[in-house]
């Protein structure tokens, strides 16, 4: 099962993923469409600030079983068997927000979209970039992420790599060798900004 895996320690809050997502879900698929199209294309991934100015790119996890699918009264939510994605049939969505109420990640929000007959707000959540996947491309957010915070692949493969990395660092540490998970100056920067949050409204 392929998924967009998040390495939160590598998210630096640039919001490239949000822009790429909005472009991918626009009518024109063009960045300039973001300012000219109506309805305005909206991102389906959300980078928000938590503690110490750290960020987390939050998006649909395409759960299985998916609570949103289970509670949808109109059957608007369904699963694509090829990509195992949870998708929304905009024509059936009545914007009742039941799905949003049960979503464990609170990533469902309601927006107008260009590709629906009756112009109303619908559950405009991540569709796993299914059109891109059909073409053999990776989701737009992952393509846009230049820090490696978002990675697309088989979850077990990604976890295995992370585990190897962990083992490498742990064994290096046992030998007394420095094995930082992050580059030194990046850790220093985060320490500095953590202090800044203690001194003002960003805390």
């Amino acid at each position, binding site marked *: 099962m392929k998924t967009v895996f998040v390495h939160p320690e590598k998210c630096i809050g640039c919001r490239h993923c949000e822009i790429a997502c909005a472009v991918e879900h626009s009518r024109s698929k063009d960045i300039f469409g973001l300012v000219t199209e109506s309805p305005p294309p909206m991102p389906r991934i959300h980078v928000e600030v938590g503690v110490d100015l750290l960020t987390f790119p939050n998006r649909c996890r395409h759960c299985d079983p998916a609570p949103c699918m289970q509670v949808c009264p109109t059957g608007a939510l369904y699963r694509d068997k090829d990509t195992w994605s949870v998708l929304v049939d905009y024509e059936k969505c009545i914007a009742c927000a039941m799905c949003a109420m049960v979503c464990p990640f609170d990533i469902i929000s309601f927006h107008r979209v260009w590709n629906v007959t009756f112009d109303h707000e619908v559950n405009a959540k991540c569709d796993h970039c299914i059109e891109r996947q059909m073409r053999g491309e990776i989701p737009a957010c992952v393509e846009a992420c230049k*820090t490696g915070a978002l990675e697309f692949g088989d979850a077990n493969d990604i976890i295995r790599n992370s585990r190897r990395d962990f083992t490498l660092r742990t064994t290096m540490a046992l030998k007394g060798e420095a094995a930082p998970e992050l*580059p030194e100056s990046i850790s220093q*920067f985060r320490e500095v900004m953590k202090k*800044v949050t203690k*001194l*003002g409204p*960003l805390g």
Partner: protein
Amino acid sequence: MDIKPKLVKELIEERTIDEAAREVMAKAIEDGIETVWDRLEAQQPQCGFGQLGLCCNRCAMGPCRISPFGETGPTRGVCGADANVIAARNLLDDLLVGAAAHSDHGREVVEVLLKTAEGKAQGYEIIDEEKLKAVAREYEIEVEGRSSREIAKDLALAMLEEFGTIKNKIQFAEVRPPEKTKETWRNAGIVPRSVDREIVEAAHRVHMGVDSDYVNILLHALRTSLSDGWGGSMMATEISDVLFGTPKPVTSYVNLGVLKKDMVNIVLHGHNPVLSEMVVKAADEPELIEYAKKMGAKGINLVGMCCTGNEVLMRQGIPIAGNMLNQELAIATGAVEVMLIDYQCIFPSITKTASCYHTKVVSTSEKAKFPGAIHMEFHPENAYDTAKEIIKLAIENFPNRDPNRVKIPNKPMKMMAGFSVEALKSALGGSFKPLIDAIVEGKIRGAAGIVGCNNPKIKQDYGHVTLAKELIKRDIIVLETGCAAIASGKAGLLLPEAAELAGEGLKSIVTALGVPPVLHMGSCVDCSRILVLAAELAKTLNVAISDLPVAGAAPEWYSQKAISIGAYFVASGVFTVLGLPLKVYGSKDVLNLLTEGVEGVVGGKFAIEPDPIRAAELISAHIEKKRKELGI
């Protein structure tokens, strides 16, 4: 975790320590006024590539960004620039903007001197002839038997020539620094050649395919900063002194409580005092005072804001309403008839804020227009008439004030300012020897310059005030300019009584002199006064500035100007602690060079430390190290 909406009380307490500002901020929130803190919140999260210095948006092959985590993303921009080159170029780009801002301000002051010398400037005269002659002598201009105007003309032309000179030197940078400091510049190849040249060359170097060696880029950043500190900024300071008087100790008041309920309030905001000085002069015109009374006010009340405020405070004792983060709040008092703005640090949204009240924003510089402002352009030829027109506009706006929407805090803080190098020398009895003796004896351990801005990321004034208190407690005398000085004023540190907060040694010295332990030395271009003082002390002891037990700090900096100031402190040999990070953490090499390696080249270096108590410890440790090396 608490994710409830914050109460007004919580918001105002985390945003500022300025009690007067808190009062008005509560009103601003009730009035529904958007302020800088709301905008900061709306900007979260702020882009990590930008913060780390890894975003390059210079050319159309880009924009590019480098992954801060190595091989998981791109390590070079399209052109091939790596993290070192991009971070260094970004820093130089910021710094050159700061140097340009100071120096363009300086140029404008010198141009007014020229017009004054030619008899073409309305309302201006040469107030400090002694200083004119002293500076002219440094420029090797004949002064004996010549009129002030003749000397002033030669001096103005000599200075203007240094902006784009072919003589390849800046006079102040030749005659003022200690020989040993200049030697480090020569060895590093960073002697500034002219003001504009270094700035233009910096802009050239950041173009793709020019300077691609981060060390070379950073060396030029230091040279550019020197052309500001010992060039453009220093000219701004010295020629403002010539035209408007060299500051002497003066008592005045500070915080939003300096606005007055029954008077026409005019806020003088920005950085360049050339027009505001004329407003100060014109506000004494009996016809204007009469007019104000006719319109129902008791008189005209001028107050300053930011560095224009510092300039007219230092020389004319005009009260000052606050520093950078107070500008919107001044308008939210509902009691400001006109906010006169020149340039720098004026929020582009200030006219939007003003539109919620009766306040008229009057822009005065051809290079700083604000949609929604009334533009009354400054020209030396008719500056006095323009000043009178602006005051008239304010008077005529007084009846539009809604008394039901006015809230003025009622506790302005008393303060002392006006400590130019000359004033300090005179307070010491005509020589710096007593100060040096006190340092040698150890009663004063050393000196620290606290300068720079406000930044909404840090609770307003907390960084400045905490650091100043911690330093004077450790018997380190504090010299301040800019927003930092205003912060200390609001906190009561610019009063002789604040000596009580100082250590025993410093207390005994400042009490004997009748001065505060924290000295207000002026606006941000007046950081050049701190350089001059450091140079005087170093020359007296025949050492380099880097040998002195001194340090610098910018606890709440935000502006590119602060980068230039920080860099010219460092390049002049001063250990300088910044309260917010430089945007270079994406490059370990650039960070290491600025915080370590550069010390071996010029004797000064940066440290990044937001916590003001920890910053005080770093400064104190540095000062003690220098004392030890000097054998005192």
